[in-house]
């Protein structure tokens, strides 16, 4: 390094490097300038100066200098290394890898560069490259533990677990017998566990178990030891020993569901779908009874039997389980039991389903407590709160069964009984949301929030309700109450608060503010990029700390990161925005286009260039400004990094994309890669590709939809729309068109839904199959109108003839109608927009008002959409964005009447 310089300057160069490593950038800069005074063209010095400036937030200068340095000294590995570091700091890993490779061509055995390269290869999952680099590092420095481990992990990631084991064993061969020293026992133990998990992974189960037993004394993590042992025993089919070991584990933690599940598997009493024969149920019952006697303090051992018991036995177990929890007052009891409500349909009709039994049971408890203050068949008096918790449970029960009126009666009674319990208001808010009154739900959630201003959870729940009711401004203010710097909106972004960004994006989307909606959706996408980025530091850290099992698990998690539900929602939201943008380009853009269209082509070109130049200039200026402000920020407040202001807070720039569908395709590809089993992915793919006239890709989407769920109304819609569109196209002229045509001709017979049927017949056939389902009828009607526009009245009649049948429920308090609010709203919108029949839509609304009295959409008589509603005042206040925030004495005067929100008589003392 700096070899071409005279001694004095060479020393100065060493100083630059040292200053960079110790973050004394100013000192380094001075030294660099001193060299450059004498040797203005010295490449390595120029590069190092650039790298130093990069750390002082002077990016554009940095790139200039580093590139100049490299140009002046292409043969220097230092210059290439520095260039790589620069790219790495900007997360341009592919470019960085190229630079490192060039540096290594000049200096192949440079450990530092090799190590940096290996990190990048791990990050980019360049696994063959990673293996090579790690091998080289090990060859160069075989006495470093980290190099052995790195080489092992590289082979493991490259799907060669057995090779990885060999390397670890070779490494163990280099160790002394008395290894490890006391201060490295944990690391060594982790290494051993990692090795055993590798053996398990490549199927050498016997050897894994043998190794585990042999090295047992050197494994510090005793729990991991046992869990590994039991896993191996199960895989080896040594079930009796495994069962014994599971019992040992249960003694250590009798609330770990996985141990119970494992034990059940070992004794042959486990079924994936939770269905058991009567004989199995008896055996299971016996097993859990005996376990329950051993682990009296375990709640899992009491809860699990509720999942398999039936009939009277279920009743008895549920009764024993629920009573003490209602007495104690456990607000989460209903969520604990709510999986039981999904058990419906699993059983024969003759058997009462769990939910009905629960209803009967709780009503009995309620009745008895009301009458006597005691549970049935008990002599002890219950505390007064038991009645309130019972009502609380019942309210959630009826909410779950969509009997909202009863649910509200119960929760109101509970609030009347004890108006200070916050959970009551939260549940009432949730019931109202389900019943279709989002404004009232938001008001109730706000009331709950006001009761404990120090509780972030209640605050967040309230924010969510506000966003669902499209009160975005208010929601933002409320959310900011719990951020560090209350006024800085960015803080929510920095906290990666994705539920907020998604809900906010959805709300903006509903309100037609596509810019802000996109902004939020893309912010979530950015978080996922950041999470991917975050793994970088662990490539070196974990190898050093030997947390190898956790490290590999983390890498595997990262590999499927984008299949996470939040990412899916964000990407789908963004795609929807782009589709809408494509269908109705924003006013701004069209105006601009108008202006453009008046110009001659040559003028247009000039104007475009001018615009581009202006943009580039603005960008440069902004960058310089940011650098200045951050530079001054650094000098003033030391370490504090001042964030540049968001140049596009309202997402207006996002709306100015040239080709929205191209943007949509970017995110669509991610969905197709990571959520290929989601119907929504292919529905969106269909919409995008139909608009792009990509016939074959749209066909792909249709085929995927049919694969996933051919009976879904939306799948049916896409199928019919696709072939209808194809049928109406003109005969092919171009060769490519002819090719597409041939593919379609070949594919159509393979689609069973259309086999030897016309589209009209296929539509009718679909109706026959699903004639009792509202949503299917609506889809058929819509398609009928598409296929035969002259038969619109038939289509509308098809919808209007749908019957809202009662769903059979054994409950004591009356049956439930089958239709869901969400579906009825969709049908209303369909009548209004797709079938454009306002009268039919009105008739539909009148019909739905009866079914959904709390729905604001249908202006139900109990909803806050009515002028005399008790929630009305509040809803209006919220629209004005006047939050009832803490700090003042005006804490929500309107909500001072315990969940009823009615005007309260003014009284004073």
């Amino acid at each position, binding site marked *: 390094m700096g070899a071409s310089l005279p001694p004095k300057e060479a020393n100065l160069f060493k100083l630059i490097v040292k200053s960079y490593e110790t973050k004394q950038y100013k000192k380094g800069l001075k030294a660099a300038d001193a060299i450059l005074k004498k040797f203005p063209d010295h490449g390595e010095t120029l590069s190092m100066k650039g790298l130093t400036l990069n750390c002082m937030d002077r990016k554009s200068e940095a790139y200039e200098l580093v590139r100049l340095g490299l140009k002046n000294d292409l043969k220097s590995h230092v210059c290439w290394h520095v260039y790589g570091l620069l790219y790495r700091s900007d997360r341009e890993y592919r470019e960085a890898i190229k630079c490192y490779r060039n540096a290594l061509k000049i200096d192949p055995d440079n450990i530092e560069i090799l190590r940096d390269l290996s990190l990048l290869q791990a990050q980019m999952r360049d696994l063959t490259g990673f293996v090579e680099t790690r091998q080289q590092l090990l060859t160069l420095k075989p006495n470093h533990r980290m190099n052995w481990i790195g080489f092992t992990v590289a082979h493991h990631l490259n799907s060669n677990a057995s090779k990885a084991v060999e390397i670890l064993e070779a490494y163990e061969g280099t160790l002394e017998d008395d290894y490890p020293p006391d201060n490295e026992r944990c690391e060594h133990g982790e290494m051993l566990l990692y090795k055993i998990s590798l053996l398990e992974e490549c199927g050498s189960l016997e050897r894994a178990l043998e190794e585990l037993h042999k090295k047992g004394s050197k494994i510090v993590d005793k729990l991991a030891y046992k869990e590994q042992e039991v896993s191996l025993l199960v895989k080896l089919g040594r079930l009796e020993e495994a069962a014994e070991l599971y019992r040992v584990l249960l003694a250590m933690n009798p609330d770990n569901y996985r141990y119970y599940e494992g034990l059940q598997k070992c004794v042959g009493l486990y079924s994936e779908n939770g269905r058991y024969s009567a004989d199995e149920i008896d055996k299971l019952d016996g097993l859990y009874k005996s376990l329950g006697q051993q682990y009296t303090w375990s709640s899992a051992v009491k809860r699990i039997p509720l999942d398999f018991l039936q009939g009277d036995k279920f009743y008895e177990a549920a009764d024993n389980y629920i009573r003490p929890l209602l007495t104690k007052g456990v607000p989460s009891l209903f969520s604990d039991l709510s999986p039981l409500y999904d058990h419906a349909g699993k059983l024969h009709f003759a058997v009462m389903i769990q939910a009905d039994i629960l209803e009967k049971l709780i009503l009995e408890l309620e009745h008895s407590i009301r009458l006597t203050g005691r549970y049935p068949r008990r002599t002890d008096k219950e505390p007064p709160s038991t009645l309130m918790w019972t009502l609380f449970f019942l309210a959630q029960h009826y909410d779950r069964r969509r009997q909202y009126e009863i649910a509200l009666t119960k929760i109101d009674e509970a609030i009347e009984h004890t*108006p200070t319990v916050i959970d009551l208001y939260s549940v009432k808010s949730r019931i109202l949301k389900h019943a279709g009154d989002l404004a009232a739900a938001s008001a109730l959630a706000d009331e709950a929030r006001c009761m*404990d201003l120090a509780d972030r959870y209640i605050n967040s729940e309230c924010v969510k309700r506000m966003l669902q009711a499209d009160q975005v401004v208010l929601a933002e203010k409320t959310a900011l109450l719990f951020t560090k710097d209350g006024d800085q909106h960015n803080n929510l972004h920095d906290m990666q608060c994705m539920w907020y960004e998604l809900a906010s994006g959805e709300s903006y989307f509903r309100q037609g503010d596509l810019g802000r909606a996109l902004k939020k959706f893309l912010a979530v996408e950015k978080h996922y990029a950041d999470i991917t980025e975050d793994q970088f530091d662990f490539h070196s850290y974990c190898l050093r700390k030997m947390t190898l099992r956790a490290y590999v698990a983390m890498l595997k998690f990262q590999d499927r990161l984008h299949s996470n539900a939040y990412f899916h929602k964000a990407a789908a939201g963004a795609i929807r925005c782009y589709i809408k943008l494509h269908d109705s380009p924003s006013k701004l853009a069209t105006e601009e286009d108008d202006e453009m269209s008046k110009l001659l082509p040559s003028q247009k070109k000039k104007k475009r260039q001018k615009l581009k130049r202006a943009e580039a200039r603005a960008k440069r200026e902004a960058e310089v400004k940011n650098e200045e402000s951050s530079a001054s920020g650094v000098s003033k407040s030391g370490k504090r990094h001042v964030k540049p202001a968001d140049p596009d807070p309202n997402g207006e720039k996002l709306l100015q994309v040239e080709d929205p569908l191209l943007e949509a395709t970017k995110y669509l590809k991610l969905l197709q890669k990571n959520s290929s089993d989601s119907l929504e992915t292919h529905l969106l793919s269909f919409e995008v590709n139909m608009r792009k006239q990509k016939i074959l890709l749209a066909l792909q989407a249709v085929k995927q939809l049919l694969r996933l769920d051919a009976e879904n109304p939306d799948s049916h819609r896409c199928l019919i729309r696709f072939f209808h569109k194809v049928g109406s196209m003109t005969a092919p002229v171009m060769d490519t068109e002819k090719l597409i045509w041939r593919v379609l001709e070949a594919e159509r017979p393979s689609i069973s839904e259309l086999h030897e049927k016309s589209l009209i017949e296929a539509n009718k056939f679909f109706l026959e199959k699903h004639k009792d389902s509202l949503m299917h009828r609506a889809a058929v009607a819509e398609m009928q109108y598409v296929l035969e526009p002259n038969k619109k009245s038939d289509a509308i009649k098809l919808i209007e003839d749908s019957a809202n049948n009662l769903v059979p429920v054994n409950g004591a308090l009356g049956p439930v109608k089958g239709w869901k609010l969400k579906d009825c709203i969709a049908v209303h919108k369909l009548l209004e927009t797709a079938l454009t029949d306002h009268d039919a839509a009105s008739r539909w609304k009148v019909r739905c008002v009866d079914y959904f009295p709390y729905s604001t959409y249908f202006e139900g008589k109990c909803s806050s959409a009515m002028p005399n509603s008790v929630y009305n005042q509040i809803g209006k206040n919220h629209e004005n964005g006047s939050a009832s925030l803490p700090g003042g004495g005006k804490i929500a005067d309107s909500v*001072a009447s315990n969940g009823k929100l009615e005007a309260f008589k003014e009284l004073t*003392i």
Partner: protein
Amino acid sequence: MGAGREVSISLDGVRDKNVMQLKKLNTALFPVRYNDKYYADALASGDFTKLAYYSDICVGAIACRLEKKEGGAVRVYIMTLGVLAPYRGLGIGTRLLNHVLDLCSKQNISEVYLHVQTNNEDAINFYKKFGFGITDTIQNYYTNITPPHCYVLTKFIAQTKK
């Protein structure tokens, strides 16, 4: 579980973060809507205003105002004391009142007083048990409820010597 099971009763202070609990209680308990000054006084009284929790549910409260008498001595005015109906008879009111009385003797405050509607015999008897006596009657004290008259109940606490 069973008879004789101890349900814990605990007291907690009122702060701006949980003052809504007190408002909820008052709305349920009293036919009067209290103004901002009431809550400001309650918050200012510090330990003299307490919420009572019955197995972690807020079910009652005592709210006081500290008043300066001529000459600088402080007396305590109990603005409200109440427990939600289902939770009465469990000693919660007693616990709250005793807390305030204990605090008074600790801080050498010699006078505690309150107003009570003249027909509210239950309340009058309750306070008499703690050594309160009727010291005055104010005609037409209330404006919106009948009877509009009230008694002043006062307890004088013997000063403990330092």
